[in-house]
């Protein structure tokens, strides 16, 4: 067929003994949105590097518009008509949109401005060419990246997890744009591991596992469970939740918490109240930036309340609002922050040192001296027990992938055997299999009597794990509703309409004494 744009045959790339790509074949046609789906380490990134000219395969052929090509660098790929939009933006914050785009093109910012407006109008990517980048939201920055790529008039655009940075409400607009781009006869390679998105957007899905292509399917005709099974090689486990008794006494209580914004970019907390009982998982849903970060800091002790307001946060019966994280940890509170590097772990330090960061209380020190053998053994047990892929306890934290480091941190906090566990974005960047494992462990911990609070952007995650959920919007927290609530209502509440939840019968199954 002459509408075949890109064909890969027998692509093999080895790194030492590891075959990152093993005899990979891929065909992309004009006008097609083609998903490449796989877990972390399945070989997606290596394959994209081959297509974009970053690495050269050890074996196999790249055919571009029917002719074999051998690209030495991304500049050659761009000359051929292959563009890429990266997950991490590369924009200069102090420059305007047009100035940023002009750095990738021979034209001046002034000449580019009308073209930026035109492309924006045509494709549903409104962006002001004269706006400084620092004033743009994440979604707008992504538009700038996409426009920069499009103005180079590529035939093929590679998009690396473009929805990872967007709020759920911004995703449909992006999809509309991508459909219009494909409608112009361009092809898109869409890298993702979010199955529902692929089913909603893509025409074809190539599924990779262990460096090989395991299937090429029509995602619209395949269920998400089937896609997941192909991707991870076994059925996607959903957390199993045995029924359990709830204790009437809450393990964590937040009582009418008010906190002014600490800086112009922070969200003030407005009369927040919540309770988490031993044995239950409570979720907080909401688009990020609505006060989750501020609330979590008050709960963890990173932000301390003045002592007269200490009773606003209680662990079991004790007022802890004015205590620091170490005191709260001693009283049975553990916390997984959303930032792994630099907060949950020190990037430069080894996994052993990072195990010590919060777990010193597990007998890892005597009289102020670190017990290195015990620390190392503990780190090794975390690595083995949580399937952390790394070179060992001496590996620096920053050498791990985000997902593996998250498994390590979650494992560490769970090892503290907390009475209350707060987890912020438990599975950001973690692949589906590991995410399912983390969710199952949360459910298991609750089953053993821990009180768990999950804060997540991903509504599915909350619905899958939580018994009850609150919605947070502009620093206000909705009353809790059972996690069986219709997701459209939750969506409305996430946009600020808490009344949509009020129609739901209040949750009487739980003790609200």
């Amino acid at each position, binding site marked *: 067929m002459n509408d075949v744009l890109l064909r890969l045959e027998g692509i093999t790339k080895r790194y030492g003994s590891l075959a990152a790509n093993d005899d990979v074949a891929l065909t992309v046609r004009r006008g097609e949105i083609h998903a490449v789906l796989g877990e972390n380490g399945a070989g997606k990134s290596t394959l994209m590097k081959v297509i974009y000219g970053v690495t050269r395969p050890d074996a196999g052929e790249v055919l571009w518009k029917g002719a074999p090509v051998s690209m030495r660098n*991304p500049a050659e790929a761009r000359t051929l008509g292959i563009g890429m939009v*990266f997950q991490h933006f590369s924009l200069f914050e102090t420059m305007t949109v047009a100035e940023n785009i002009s750095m990738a093109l021979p034209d001046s910012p002034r000449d580019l401005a009308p073209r930026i407006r035109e492309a924006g109008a045509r494709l549903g990517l409104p962006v002001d060419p004269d706006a400084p980048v620092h004033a743009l939201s994440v979604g707008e920055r992504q538009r700038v990246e996409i426009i920069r790529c499009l103005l180079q008039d590529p035939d093929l655009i590679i998009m690396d997890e473009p929805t990872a940075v967007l709020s759920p409400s911004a995703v449909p607009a992006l999809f509309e744009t991508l459909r219009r781009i494909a409608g112009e006869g361009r092809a898109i390679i869409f890298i993702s591991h979010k199955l529902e998105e692929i089913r909603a957007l893509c025409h074809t899905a190539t599924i990779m596992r262990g460096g090989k292509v395991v299937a090429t399917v029509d995602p619209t005709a395949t269920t998400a469970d089937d896609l997941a099974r192909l991707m991870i090689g076994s059925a996607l486990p959903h957390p199993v939740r045995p029924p359990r008794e709830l204790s009437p006494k809450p393990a964590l209580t937040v009582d009418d918490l008010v906190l002014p914004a600490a800086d112009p970019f922070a969200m003030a907390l407005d009369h927040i109240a919540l309770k988490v009982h031993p044995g239950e998982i409570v979720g907080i849903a909401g688009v990020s930036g609505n006060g989750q970060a501020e609330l979590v800091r008050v709960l963890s002790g990173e932000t301390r309340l003045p002592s007269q307001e200490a009773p606003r946060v209680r662990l079991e019966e004790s007022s802890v609002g004015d205590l620091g994280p170490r005191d709260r*940890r001693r009283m049975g509170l553990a916390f997984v922050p959303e930032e792994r590097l630099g907060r949950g772990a020190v*990037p430069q330090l080894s996994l052993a040192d990072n195990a010590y960061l919060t777990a010193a209380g597990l007998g890892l020190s005597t009289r*102020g001296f670190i017990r290195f053998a015990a620390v190392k053994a503990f780190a090794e047990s975390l690595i083995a027990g949580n399937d952390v892929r790394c070179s060992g306890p001496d590996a620096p934290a920053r050498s791990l992938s985000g997902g593996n480091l998250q498994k390590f941190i979650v494992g560490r906090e769970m090892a503290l055997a907390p009475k209350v566990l707060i987890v912020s974005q438990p599975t950001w960047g973690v692949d589906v299999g590991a995410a399912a494992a983390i969710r199952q462990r949360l459910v298991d911990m609750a089953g053993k009597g821990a009180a768990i609070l999950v804060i997540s952007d991903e509504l599915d995650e909350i619905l899958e794990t939580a018994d009850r959920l609150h919605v947070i919007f502009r620093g206000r927290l909705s009353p809790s509703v059972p996690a069986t609530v219709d997701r459209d209502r939750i969506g409305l509440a996430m946009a600020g309409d808490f009344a949509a939840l009020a129609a739901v019968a209040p949750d009487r199954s739980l003790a609200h004494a």
Partner: protein
Amino acid sequence: MLEARTAPSRATLVAVPAIAVALTLLCGFLLFTAIGSPPEKVAYAFFVQPFASVGAIGEVLLKTGPLLLVAQGLAIGYRADIWNIGAEGQLIVGAICASVLAIAFETSTSPFLLPAMILAGAAGGAAWAGIAALLRVRFGASEILTTFMLSSVALQLLYFLVTGPLKDPMGFNFPQSVMFGDAALFAPLIPGTRANTSLLMGLAATLVAWVFMARTTAGFRLMVGGLAPAAARYAGFSQTRAIWIGLLAGGACAGLAGVGEVAGPLGMLQRTLSPGYGFAAIIVAFLGGLNPIGIVFAALVMAVIYVGGDYAVVSAGVPNASATILQGFLLVFYLAASLLFTHRIRWRKAAVAEGSAP
């Protein structure tokens, strides 16, 4: 543009200081030759003379002591991101506190006088640094500024004391105190040299610093606070405590070094106490990679520069400022080498579309 290297190698720890020292020697040599000093004499003064006799080695060790002491104390703070650059002032206050005791008990022969002076010196230096710690903790004042400004205050205090209350009444109006009694003086470690207990205190500080940084929970907390402040907050390590420990450790060590000077080679309190040990020790701490063992070698290198500089002034006629110039070279080359080991230069325009963040 500069781009961070992904994995700075372990070799950095040795290679960076080695390159910095080599470039310093080369540039110093070229500079002194250019201004007309006989090159062979300059080389002889720096490379041979400091090691040519027991006395010369003794001089090197004499200068190693205070540099080592001060640098070990400073490095503890630096690793925690606490920037005490006023060790010179803390050294002076430590010397003053010890001197007050020595002068007040001028005729004493008590064996407790010297230990009391050591304690007073350490306490004085720590207290002087403690002012900066208090200002930082209570008012958020940058310790970089306060410690530096307090150095000037300490110097003025010293000038006032040696021309006023502590001046030797029989000293023909020279700005200096009385000579200390024997009970207030360190005995030389090796006969025929002036090297004294200051060196032993430096080595003891090295041991303590190493154990503290590598083995204790408190040292670990300081390190985390320096590397990743958000992680330290998350773990619940107190920043206030880190500020106090970092500044007090540096101040106490500098104070001890001050005792070593007045109770050692000087034997009295005088206008010029230290040839800039407090500032040179900052360079020593960095040259040693903020590593207690590395600092021992760095202190030796710096001491050789001091002693070689003195010889070069006499034998090769280089300017008095030669040691200071070499210290400057050393710092600049160290910073440059260290940056180039952790970053690489890309000469072309930023390849924006390749995903490398600007």
